[in-house]
């Protein structure tokens, strides 16, 4: 007997994806995660552009990860051009990222993931029964956007971050204004952690995983670093990312899939928490302990809980960064002079969904001749397919509607960003 199960359009994710499963005589004969978001050829669009036009274009790969594409492209270009930035710039970038984490995670947890666990179709349907929760999600999301708007000039696709730093530096008053907002949000953040800790995480998806994440600079948990740490213990410099990601063109998807050494791996909040929970800010760390969460966790659905913990860490860390900036005194800095030259630069940062790589090659006039972007979702696709397979194997006894719901739940736990994944990749960076 052959059964076909199809999820035509995965809802409550960013972008367009489809799941196709075929089961014959109790065996999975086909399982595909199709990405049918149209390809936009961002890397090809970058070629022929002046270097300083790149951050404007590349942040548009994805609205939810706009801050991350913006800063990672800027850092890759700074690497190519030998531009060093000030500590103040680095702190402001970190603050910007905390805003992006809060906004993106609150959006995913309350509007995309929570309805799954409570048996509803959307956050709007949650309102009559769970008004508190929906309002809390909106409040947290708004705070994330307030931070991003202050640093970037706009919550989505802001142009204030530029190569060398920030075009306009926020004032001390503006930063002061954020502090009570961050402090008051801690209660909402903790309620978020407790809410997601109370949910039931089925075991049918538990299997051993390989996790990758950037090892944070300095003593804190964070989103910037130079080396990738794997849960197998190896450390890889960011510049060696092609070996790690090994992107492959897959016929059924306009996004490429990544497999490290042919073994699927996972990037994202769960990977970061598993690898670096010791570096979390005090309150976040204490919450991990209070909810009795044994780390590392091998249950991919725990990615939701990991995101909730990261919201707390971001609220605490953002406040700490602001204190540091205020203690040092904000300076109106002139942007460093740029000597245009031929070169190649790579950078990676941790976006909400995992490690994001940008690489550019410039000619002697500063014109882009090669570009490569590898997004977290592209890296996760092979892993998502593997997990969907495991889910189907363990859930075959259920009816189709139930299987469909659970497959969507697994895919959604990764918080996949399909626009990001379907940006497509320029393979023309020469490597000699």
């Amino acid at each position, binding site marked *: 007997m052959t059964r076909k199960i199809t999820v035509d359009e995965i809802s409550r*994710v960013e972008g367009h994806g489809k799941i196709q499963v075929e089961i014959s005589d109790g065996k999975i004969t086909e399982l595909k995660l199709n990405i049918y978001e149209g390809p936009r050829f961002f890397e090809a669009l970058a070629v022929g552009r002046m270097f300083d*036009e790149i951050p404007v274009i590349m942040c548009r790969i*994805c609205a939810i990860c706009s801050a991350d594409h913006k800063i990672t492209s800027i850092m890759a270009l700074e690497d190519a051009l030998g531009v060093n930035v000030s500590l103040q710039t680095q702190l402001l970038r970190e603050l910007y990222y905390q805003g992006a984490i809060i906004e993106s995670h609150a959006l995913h947890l309350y509007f995309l993931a929570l309805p799954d666990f409570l048996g509803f179709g959307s956050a709007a349907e949650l309102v009559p029964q769970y008004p508190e929760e929906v309002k809390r999600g909106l409040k947290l999301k708004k705070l994330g956007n307030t931070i991003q708007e202050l640093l970037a000039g706009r919550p989505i696709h802001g142009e204030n971050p530029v190569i060398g730093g920030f075009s306009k530096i926020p004032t001390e008053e503006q930063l002061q204004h954020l502090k009570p907002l961050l402090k008051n949000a801690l209660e909402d953040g903790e309620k978020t952690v407790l809410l997601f800790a109370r949910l039931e995480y089925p075991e049918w998806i538990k299997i051993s995983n390989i996790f990758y994440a950037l090892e944070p600079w300095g003593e804190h948990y964070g989103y910037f670093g130079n080396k990738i740490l794997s849960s197998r213990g190896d450390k890889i410099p960011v510049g060696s990312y092609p070996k790690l990601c090994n992107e492959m063109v897959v016929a059924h998807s306009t996004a490429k899939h990544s497999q490290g050494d042919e073994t699927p791996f996972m990037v994202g909040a769960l990977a970061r928490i598993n690898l670096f929970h010791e570096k979390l800010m005090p309150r976040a760390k204490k919450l991990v302990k209070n909810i009795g969460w044994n780390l590392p966790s091998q249950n991919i659905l725990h990615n939701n809980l990991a995101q909730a913990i990261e919201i707390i860490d971001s609220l605490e860390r953002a406040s700490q960064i602001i204190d540091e900036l205020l203690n040092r005194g904000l300076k109106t800095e002139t942007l460093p002079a740029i000597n245009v030259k031929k070169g190649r630069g790579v950078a990676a940062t941790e976006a909400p969904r995992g490690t994001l790589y940008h690489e550019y090659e410039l000619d002697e006039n500063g014109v882009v001749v090669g570009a490569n972007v590898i997004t977290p979702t592209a890296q996760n696709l092979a892993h998502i397919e593997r997990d969907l397979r495991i889910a189907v194997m363990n859930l075959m006894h259920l009816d189709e509607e139930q299987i469909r719901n659970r497959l969507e739940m697994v895919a959604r736990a990764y918080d996949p960003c399909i626009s990001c994944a379907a940006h497509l990749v320029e*393979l023309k960076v020469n490597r000699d």
Partner: protein
Amino acid sequence: MRPRIGIFGLTSCAGDQLAIINCEDELLDILSVVDIKSFVMAQSRNEGQKLDVAFVEGSVVTREDEERLKQIRKESGLLVAIGTCAVWGGIPASRNDLGRKELYQKVYQKEENLYDCRPRVSPLSEIVKVDFAIAGCPIEKEQIISSVASLVHGDLPLLPSYAVCFECKLRENVCLLKEKDQLCCGPVTLGGCEARCPSHFVPCKGCRGPVQEANIASEFEILGEKGYSPADVARMLTTFAYSSEVIAHREGGKR
């Protein structure tokens, strides 16, 4: 009865749909006056059905985008294009001067992987009738809120129709083009953003697309005097809104 609306994304970054979800203070009020029948990014159980208003984000990149758009048009009373991709083609259309094939080969290095792409990237209005357009990369949330309010009351929204320069002057910013010799698209770009970028000392990138009756020739001329080549100016002006008029200025050097 609450108007039945749908929010759709063709090929895009989802920024305009996100801008709607970003109306954190107003979202619950909006939900109380409209009945959202389709919004795949935010809800399950989306059924094809008659809509009073469809908001459509993204540009038409694939044949499937084209088919979906035609279907949405058929099912909807009013069709509103949201975001610069939907209104002008956006960044994905920025290299419409290049054959799609050339672009594919650059990315895939193989010809058989043409996927489902159309020969060029199109704004919605090249495929179907668009009743109303809200431009911006992304759209400004005040404009989506006021548009929804107007539409709910059976009115067509009224949005700014002046250039970015107008708002920039109101904010008393130093002119980045005249005073700082920077390549600013403000004079020919639709306002309504309160000149966000120039207010951060960043020249306008043209992300909201051209203002009505934009004087393209004059923009080339002024920037030419500042030392920018027609190729530089054309590249900036077609970043978000590909236009054969701009390309003609680049090619013909009509200055």
